[in-house]
């Protein structure tokens, strides 16, 4: 398996803002690689360097074996790119958009239709509708189809699921899995942590830095401390109480329960329960839970909430 993308020590700044700080990544052929991180973490800048739209200040980047600075002309025809906001022509129809992007890449919609068929067939009844009048989920599918129409070797999707509802997001990832089977390398960026688990490998990115890069399983496994999920009827009271606990290392609400780590190597759960009831928090349930990507991410971010 060859290396499709090789990024070494890349930094990029805009004025006084350091968007990327010494990033190094290697992406292998045929994998689905996810860059996970919040807004402003540098994902879009990284994508623009990979698509040769921006030049790194330091370091080097190679895509499909070509240098992004000197050989960008060779890279561009081989890419499928879906930038944020989908970049469709709002005043052209679904059909016209597809035809346009096909022709710009020197092909026509029929040539590779089988590739986009599973995605595009939902748009079939709306061929004549202006792209501007489609729902978010439909625009997403159209943009993906347009990015794939010339059967690129590398698909770069910058936040394709942002602002789209949960159902469409799920469907989108099902489509990506199908594409992987065609041998297309896919690089995705997303702020949704749960989508990390759907990737082959993941790079956690925050503030222009790569916190960790590995398979989702490895990242989770690297979460060192024992993790506890604590529930109670009075969630807010529970949070306040836990934060005031002297042994608390991290306290994070996680849906129904609070994820808690302790500063001691062997936490004293009974002691914690007693402390909580002294604080007036009733009906407490404490369970050992497995960490998820989000727990790992927050631990890596290093901004643990303690003793507020």
């Amino acid at each position, binding site marked *: 398996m060859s290396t499709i993308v090789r990024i070494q020590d890349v930094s990029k700044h805009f004025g006084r803002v350091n968007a990327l700080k010494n990033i190094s990544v290697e992406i292998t052929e045929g994998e689905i690689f996810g860059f996970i991180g919040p807004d402003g973490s540098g994902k879009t800048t990284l994508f*623009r360097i990979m*698509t*040769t*739209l*921006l*030049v790194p200040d330091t370091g080097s980047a190679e895509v499909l074996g070509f240098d992004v600075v000197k050989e*960008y002309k060779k890279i*561009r*025809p081989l*890419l499928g*790119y879906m*930038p*944020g*906001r989908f*970049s*469709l*022509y*709002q005043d052209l129809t679904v059909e016209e958009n597809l035809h346009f*992007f096909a022709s*710009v*890449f*020197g092909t026509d919609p029929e040539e590779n239709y089988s590739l986009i068929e599973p995605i595009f067939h939902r748009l079939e009844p709306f061929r004549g509708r202006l792209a501007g009048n489609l729902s978010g989920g439909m625009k997403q599918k159209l943009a993906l189809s347009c990015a794939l129409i010339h059967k690129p070797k590398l698909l770069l999707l910058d936040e394709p699921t942002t602002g789209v509802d949960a159902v469409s997001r799920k469907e989108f990832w099902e489509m990506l899995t199908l594409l992987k089977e065609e041998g297309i390398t896919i690089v995705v960026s997303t702020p949704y942590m749960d989508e990390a688990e759907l990737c082959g490998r993941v790079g956690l990115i925050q503030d222009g830095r790569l916190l960790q890069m590995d398979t989702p399983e490895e990242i989770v496994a690297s979460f060192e401390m024992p993790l506890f999920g604590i529930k109670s009827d009075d969630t807010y009271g529970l949070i306040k109480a836990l934060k005031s606990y002297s042994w608390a290392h991290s306290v994070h609400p996680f849906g129904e329960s609070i994820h808690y780590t302790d500063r001691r190597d062997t936490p004293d759960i009974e002691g914690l329960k007693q402390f909580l009831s002294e604080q007036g928090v009733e009906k407490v349930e404490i369970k050992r839970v497995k960490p998820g990507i989000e727990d790992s991410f927050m631990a890596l971010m290093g901004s643990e909430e303690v003793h507020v």
Partner: protein
Amino acid sequence: MRTFRGFVVKEFRQIVRDTRTLVVLFGMPVIMMVLFGFAIRNEVNNVQVAVLDLAKDAATQSIIQKLGASESFELAGTLESYDEVEQLFREGDIKEVVVFEAGFSEKLIRDGVANIQIITDATDPNLANLVQAYTTSIVQDYTASLNSPAQGQPAGIQPVVRMMYNPELRSVNLFVPGLIAVILMLISALMTSISITREKEMGNMEILLVSPLKPHHIIIGKVLPYLVLSVINVITILILAKFVFQVPFEGSYLFFFLEATLFILTALSLGVFISSIANNQQTAMMISLAGLLLPTVLLSGFIFPVSSMPQPLQLLSHTIPAKWFLIIVRDIMLKGSGLNYLWFETLILSLITLFFMGVSLKKFKVRLQ
């Protein structure tokens, strides 16, 4: 009330922080005052005049001297025969020829009447009118100085005025060429610049850049529809001019269309250039309107004669493509001139076009930064 005041304070703050708006708010009025103030002239200054003196006697010398002394006129040459007049006007620099008939002074003394012919280039009827009026008043001045009581006999000099190329002084003949220039500037430059920056604004430019489309493909593709539209517009205006307003068309239609196409290309290249320095549609529109359209209307000679403006503005007007195009169009339509007379203006337009096209292509960024 406080609610309202808080809102007003916010509005002021935002305006003050937006440099672009400030430039428009304070810079524009100043520029407009200067341009309009100096451009709008109803006087005449330094108009080039030639003299055909068939008498060459004391009276004619006096009148010629008076003409030369006036600020309005600049004696640019003397002619030997009537045949030279047409040629001189075609060359374009001379706006007026004053012809003194043979035996001028004698006729004046003997008959009490002598003839002066004032021939003006009326392709710019405003200017022609003014020039003729000034000349006539200088002549009348001289006449009055002759009519001293000592002489006894009233002297009269009768100026016969001839407006060449536009005998009826129809302003529509002046306007139509100017209108063509302004409309072409509007459509080609303004619309092209907006179209390209809109692509940038909407983010679609990113995808186009990453695609196999070459930069010159993108530019030509953007420009082509406006080229076609502009040509259609030129035809429409010409048809209207000829059949509704009866503007004469003395020259060759083919030549006219070639020159018009050249000017369209000039305007388009300016539009592309503006889009390479503007990042969004609003900026593109402001630069097109303030930097291109306004000077075109004021400094190209469309309405106000350039020769009457102060030197700095005259120099500036040389840089405005419409000024050269106006000369070309007026000369073709009203004088029937061909390339042999208009090669200089054509060359200038071509150079301007090539320059801006070259710069735009170079500036067209293959990347986002």
